[in-house]
């Protein structure tokens, strides 16, 4: 049996059909203005354990968010997974009821760019694989990983998946956006233990448009190399250290504080920045940060946001200066700029980054030019991955205290750290950067070089 997910034709979003239903129900309800975002996804995933299939999962899901404006220009929404005629009718009634509680002081409008020309993303739609093919690939990956070192005893967290996603946005003024893409990922998280030592773990992930593009070999090697390097570990002293963030870790940190660039958070008083912070020097001057959802390496890129606004590349920090913010229609209107393509869809519209890119603009020399993760002999802490970001970050205060995986490096020799936390303040971090390396490394959450920061507080074993 071909049990791939491609032979399921039921889950195609039919924008004409949805449009006709919405026109009908809005007319019957005397609603003149509405918009709607819908998505459909099909997913197939496998997990394995010691050479056997563990859990095999598939899903096919639809969802729709409908937004209406009542005669007082109050906005109401309803979200549903039932895209039948009955379901959409119920959603219309729910949105109208919710609109009676819409915030008259701040009503969203249609994006002025919802019908503008859009940059076509040539998204690859991969050929689907059968469950057996997925299992074979993942079993081989698990075996190869286990074979790399005798101390690696299991890969307790692993998965290989293939997803097809389709999105549409339509509104009562004729906007009509539509896009599909496919995405595949593999993650391998392995465990190892040596006699009389604690168990250690490490992992890595790869995401591409198709399974055939996944660099599984490098995922295996990265997991294995990291894990082997964590087998011999030690406690470190609690003190201030020179720290080198890997690209993954630095992007984690910047993403955790992305409310700095978020116009919605700024308006709501939930950001470190204020409405007049544009133009402020917030980091060392050779740091640039941009959000580039359209970057070719961003395999999950959609060409429009929840309000139908085209996705745009936005420079956020240029030469250390806060240059632009991420906007929805409503925040852009308040700031007197155009929406940037980073909005969700709601009565109160959220804003979020797509794909952050960190770089050294070369505008001045790094404070410590000689630092390089490959050959620096000074003592430093190499932070590979931060944990517990949901609980250890106070985004509105700028502070963080986070456990991390990493190594202490002395004379070029890396030794894994038993357990430790790094604490600080994001503005202090941005202004204490002493080196931004030149090599840009692509990760699954953006692009960044290694970034060095001095005087970071690290808690090890006391």
């Amino acid at each position, binding site marked *: 049996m071909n049990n791939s997910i491609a032979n399921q034709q039921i889950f195609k979003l039919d924008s004409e059909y949805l449009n006709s239903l919405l026109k009908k129900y809005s007319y019957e309800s005397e609603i003149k203005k509405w918009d709607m975002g819908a998505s459909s996804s099909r997913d197939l995933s496998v997990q394995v354990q010691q050479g056997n299939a563990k859990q*095999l999962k*598939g899903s*096919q899901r639809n969802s729709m968010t409908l937004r209406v404006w009542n005669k007082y220009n109050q906005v109401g929404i309803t979200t549903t997974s039932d895209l039948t005629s009955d379901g959409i009718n119920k959603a219309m009634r729910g949105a109208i009821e919710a609109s009676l509680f819409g915030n008259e002081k701040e009503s969203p409008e249609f994006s002025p760019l919802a019908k503008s020309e859009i940059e076509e993303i040539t998204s690859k739609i991969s050929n689907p694989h059968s469950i057996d093919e997925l299992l074979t690939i993942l079993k081989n990956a698990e075996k190869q990983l286990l074979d790399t070192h005798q101390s690696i005893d299991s890969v307790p967290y692993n998965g290989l998946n293939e997803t097809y996603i389709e999105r549409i946005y339509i509104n009562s003024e004729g906007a009509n956006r539509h896009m599909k893409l496919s995405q595949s990922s593999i993650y391998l998280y392995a465990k190892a233990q040596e006699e009389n030592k604690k168990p250690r773990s490490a992992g890595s992930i790869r995401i591409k448009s198709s399974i055939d593009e996944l660099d599984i070999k490098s995922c295996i090697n990265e997991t294995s190399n990291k894990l082997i390097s964590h087998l011999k570990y030690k406690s470190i002293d609690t003190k201030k250290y020179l720290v080198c963030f890997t690209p993954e870790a630095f992007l984690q940190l910047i993403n955790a504080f992305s409310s700095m660039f978020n116009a919605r958070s700024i308006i709501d008083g939930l950001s470190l920045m204020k409405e007049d912070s544009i133009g402020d020097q917030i980091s060392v001057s050779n740091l640039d940060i941009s959000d580039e959802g359209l970057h070719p390496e961003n395999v999950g890129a959609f060409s429009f946001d929840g309000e139908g606004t085209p996705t745009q590349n936005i420079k956020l920090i240029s030469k250390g200066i806060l240059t632009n913010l991420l906007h929805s229609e409503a925040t852009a209107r308040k700031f007197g700029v155009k929406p940037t393509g980073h909005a969700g869809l709601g009565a109160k519209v959220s804003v979020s980054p797509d794909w952050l890119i960190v770089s050294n603009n070369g505008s001045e020399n790094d404070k410590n030019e000689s630092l390089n993760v490959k050959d620096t002999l000074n003592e430093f802490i190499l932070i590979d991955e931060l944990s517990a970001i949901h609980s250890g970050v106070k985004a509105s205060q700028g502070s963080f205290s986070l456990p991390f995986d990493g190594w202490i490096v002395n004379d070029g020799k890396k030794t894994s750290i038993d357990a430790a*936390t790094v604490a600080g303040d994001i503005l202090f971090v941005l202004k204490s950067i002493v080196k931004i390396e030149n090599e840009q490394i692509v990760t699954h959450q953006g692009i960044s070089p290694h970034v060095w920061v001095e005087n970071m507080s690290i808690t090890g074993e006391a």
Partner: protein
Amino acid sequence: MTNTLLTKQNQNLLFHIFDETLKPQIEELLYLGKSAGADLVEVFLEKSDNISLLAEQDDISNVSPSFGIGAGIRVFLGKKDGFVSTNDLSKAGLLFALNQALGMLGLVTGSKTNNKFEGLSDLSDFGKKKNAWLEFIPDLDESTLKLLEATKLLGDKNKNLQVRRASYSRNWQEVLVAASDGVFARDIRLHQTVGINVIAQKDNNRSTSARRYGSSDNPDDLRNWKIEKSANELNESAQKMLYAGYVEAGQMPVVLANKFGGVIFHEACGHLLETTQLERGTSPFHDSLDKQIAHEAVSAVDEGITNHAFGSISMDDEGMEPENTLLIENGILKKFLSDRAGSLRTGHPRTGSGRRQNFSYAAASRMRNTYIKQGNFSPDELIKSVDDGLYCKSMGGGSVGPTGQFNFSVEEGYLIKNGKLEKPVKGATLIGEAKEILPRISMCANDLDHAAGFCGSVSGSVNVTVGQPHIKVDSITVGGR
């Protein structure tokens, strides 16, 4: 939609309750699965009707209703299982999902003739008395007024509360579980949460403070919310933390307050007692049954039965009534939490702990209301026993890693010097390993209390209660500056 397998009186199931009339249609699916050679087939149907509200300062800024319907079909063959979820309940959609789940295990419908399916039992209807709950809960008018009352009260408490937010979330869920071993059960769940949070600002100092309250199966919960008490507690916390300095890092004794302090046990130990972790070989306690894993002062329970507690359930998501499970007695490990798949793969008996966020997840062994039992000391006696340490009055979230290392943040902390509470401190993170920390919980006070929370894991985010009395940990690493 036509061609619908699951219908009632030829109308969309969205508008009707799940009941006995669905039995023949579900039995048809189960029969098809069994006759293909599956050991067991399970169908999980879910209908949801949710609303979330947000008040900011003195306005309602968001009203977001949502509703949906979906099914999860799980097929077992030996110790393997295939799971497919869909929100297409048409005949074609459900048959596609069943065939896909069977195909994952190499099975094909119609390939075998008979594999002993004796039909479903009579419906165990745990939701019978709950059918009218949606009518009893506060409507949008009443709910929004309640939130505005809260934000106004906070504004009246202190002018330096620059951000005042109150949120309300109501999740109503109707579920039906049917399996080829005869299980046929229905329930209605009602969960309500209220969250309030503030940012206080004076000069260049800022503090944030948040609280969440939650209940299950209590339509009057929002109505009975004691807003004044919550606002007082939140404001007091925000004001105290406004000028708090950063905690100095180190290894030290810690006293954890009751209620949400129980998150330490949830993260450090509870997750490691789920058969989900045993299956993966990631629990350090996998071979510790009937062995001492904690200080003898520690006895702990996970149960799903406390009236209106956030983690309580009438039945789990596999149709089993929840147990009151004694996990640890005087430091000795007594039992693991197990679901259907966990029981199959590890041999530990099911405990009514098979839970999932919704139809799109397969059930897994998950905690419900988990707490350390109270001891005989007063909270003051715990504080007095510490010369130099930290009192964690309010905890943030936490997590546990794949090999048992845990962490959680301290929202409101105070230094303890010579047995007395001193200045407030912020920025503390507690880190450790379950195996090392459990034996160091040396004192439990007599003031057990609970708090609502959400737990994210393999089967999604589920409602849980954490709890404990004040406890003392003799030594733990405190991350700070």
